[in-house]
């Protein structure tokens, strides 16, 4: 459905844009029909940039993103609008997504004005209520209220309902859980599972490994703009192949096992982005070899559907 082919994004920084920051480099992966793919990475891994590139919120530097066969960067005017009918995003901070001066349900009216001006008010209101029920909200409880009168979880569902009003096929969910309280988080996660059952595909961007495990079919592990490893979720979690993934699995605080006493000390590495020479993880990798600092490893299939970019494998 959606495919990324050697996608690269370079941000220009500094007064005259003289410094370059390679946020994402040569990233290729696909999202299939009715598939939830989690994109997992720490801060600075480029995971949100990938979401923005797919949503065309920032231009791509090189490579190509295809949605159902069409190069997304060629879209403009009516065809771009058609794209947004199919692909929508929901972001981390629900409060920042609403204008506090207006009532929260204004987002629905804006969708109608923009995409469905021909639909009658009555029919539209029914559609809105249907979408709200689909995300587990009771319409009378949440309509006609200001953003501050609703909880973070409710606002986040509002935004998903807004996306459902369009004929969306793909939802980009960028850290949509992280600002919610623990007791309401899992409900929003379950909502994503329900949407998948309704035929949607979801790119679930997160830094939290356990959330990715709970919800996704496939997992993509990013490290400093590069894919370190990707594959079916259970394989990536239970048999990680990349030393970075191994480190993540060992250090993330989990509820199913305690940290091991013996810490495999990770080496301190610089914070520079990928330079082009060698593996981006080489500076911190405990298994570093000569070749790692000279040549960059390509993403290779180690077993069916399970890819890793590491010379040691």
């Amino acid at each position, binding site marked *: 459905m959606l495919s990324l082919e050697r996608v690269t994004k370079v941000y220009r920084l500094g007064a005259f844009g003289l410094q370059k920051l390679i946020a994402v480099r040569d990233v290729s992966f696909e999202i299939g029909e009715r598939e939830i793919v989690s994109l997992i990475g720490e801060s600075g891994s480029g995971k949100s940039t990938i979401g923005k590139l797919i949503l065309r919120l920032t231009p791509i530097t090189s490579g190509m993103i295809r949605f159902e066969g069409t190069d997304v960067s060629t879209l403009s005017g009516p065809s771009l609008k058609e794209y947004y009918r199919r692909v929508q995003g929901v972001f981390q901070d629900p409060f920042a997504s609403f204008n506090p001066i207006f009532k929260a349900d204004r987002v629905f009216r804006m969708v109608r004005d923009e995409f469905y001006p021909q639909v009658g008010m009555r029919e539209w209101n029914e559609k809105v209520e249907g979408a709200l029920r689909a995300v587990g909200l009771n319409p009378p409880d949440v309509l006609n209220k200001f953003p501050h009168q609703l909880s973070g979880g409710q606002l986040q569902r509002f935004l998903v309902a807004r996306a459902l009003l369009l004929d969306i096929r793909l939802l980009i969910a960028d850290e949509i859980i992280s600002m919610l*309280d623990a007791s309401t988080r899992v409900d929003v996660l379950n909502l994503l599972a329900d949407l998948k059952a309704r035929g949607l595909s979801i790119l679930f961007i997160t830094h939290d490994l*356990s959330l990715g*495990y709970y*919800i996704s079919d496939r997992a993509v592990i990013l490290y400093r703009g590069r894919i370190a490893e990707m594959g079916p979720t259970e394989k990536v979690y239970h048999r990680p192949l990349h030393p970075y993934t191994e480190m993540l699995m060992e*250090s993330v605080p989990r509820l199913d096992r*305690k*940290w091991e006493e013996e810490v495999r000390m990770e080496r301190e590495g610089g914070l520079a982005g990928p330079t082009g020479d060698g593996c981006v993880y080489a500076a911190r990798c405990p298994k570093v070899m000569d070749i790692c600092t000279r040549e960059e490893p390509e993403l290779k299939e180690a077993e069916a559907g399970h890819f890793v970019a590491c010379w040691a494998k």
Partner: protein
Amino acid sequence: MLQVENLTVYYKTIRGYVRALEGATFTIADGEIMGLAGESGCGKTTLGHSLIYLRPPMNYIGGRVVLDGQELPIWDMEKMQEFRYRHVSLIPQYAMNALNPTRKIGRMIAELLESRGMNYDEVLPELKRRLDLVQLSHDVLKMYPIELSGGMKQRTVMVVSTLLNPSLLIADEITSALDVSTQKAVCEMLVEFRDRGFVKSTIIITHDISILYQIADSILVMYAGQLSEKAPTETIFQDARHPYTRMLIGSLPKVGVRYQEERLLGIPGSPPQLLNPPEGCRFRDRCPVAFDRCTEVPPFREISPGHSVACWRAF
């Protein structure tokens, strides 16, 4: 040892008091690392901060805080100055930004010690030993904060906060902005500081319960300004008695659980607002086992050694 009795702290607003912390009673033993957990707005930060820095709009309403047998004058900002840093110390939430950017680290520490009537040169050997312990070069003392990486700043702040061997250390959400590898290192430092006797009791305030599962000896769960349950970490996970604790733990996704096999459930509803909170147990509107008695505030009572709970159903 820290003893807190009936500590009540409200926030003063134009519309009245926000009852952020109500009648908190608990103790922390020497050498105990206690996790303070709860959702946003439950009063965990209010509780932590009121033990060291109770300032407006926080209002002291009542209660006693006794540290090593001596009562802390928490209601008096000036008198508390004598205890702050020496006996009670805090690692702030954004510890990485807590350093004065215009001072070299060494000079900043010297000024801090002087303000407590201590001599930098006398403390220096111990300071260097502790820098070694957290694998920081002594050169950081001659550097400006901007020259250090985020992880190095975090470690520096942790060394400085515990330099005078405080009896109580309060760590406020110190792991939330960190990458996983740094997060683990910071947690292990807290344990190390305790093991070496640099601090006696530690309170770790966090919304991330999986961190507490890793390092806390005991966990205190709060809900809407009231204490719900305190127990050894294993008990909280295996044998919690408060419905809120159980539902909260049950709602957390863990590696090994996928929605296709085990669909986790959240807690329906939302916490009450604390301006005019309902009488009785504040969880009762969301509680599946609430009954008549719950309109009365349940006492926070010990039901077995080290395990206290505030729920009528548990007694």
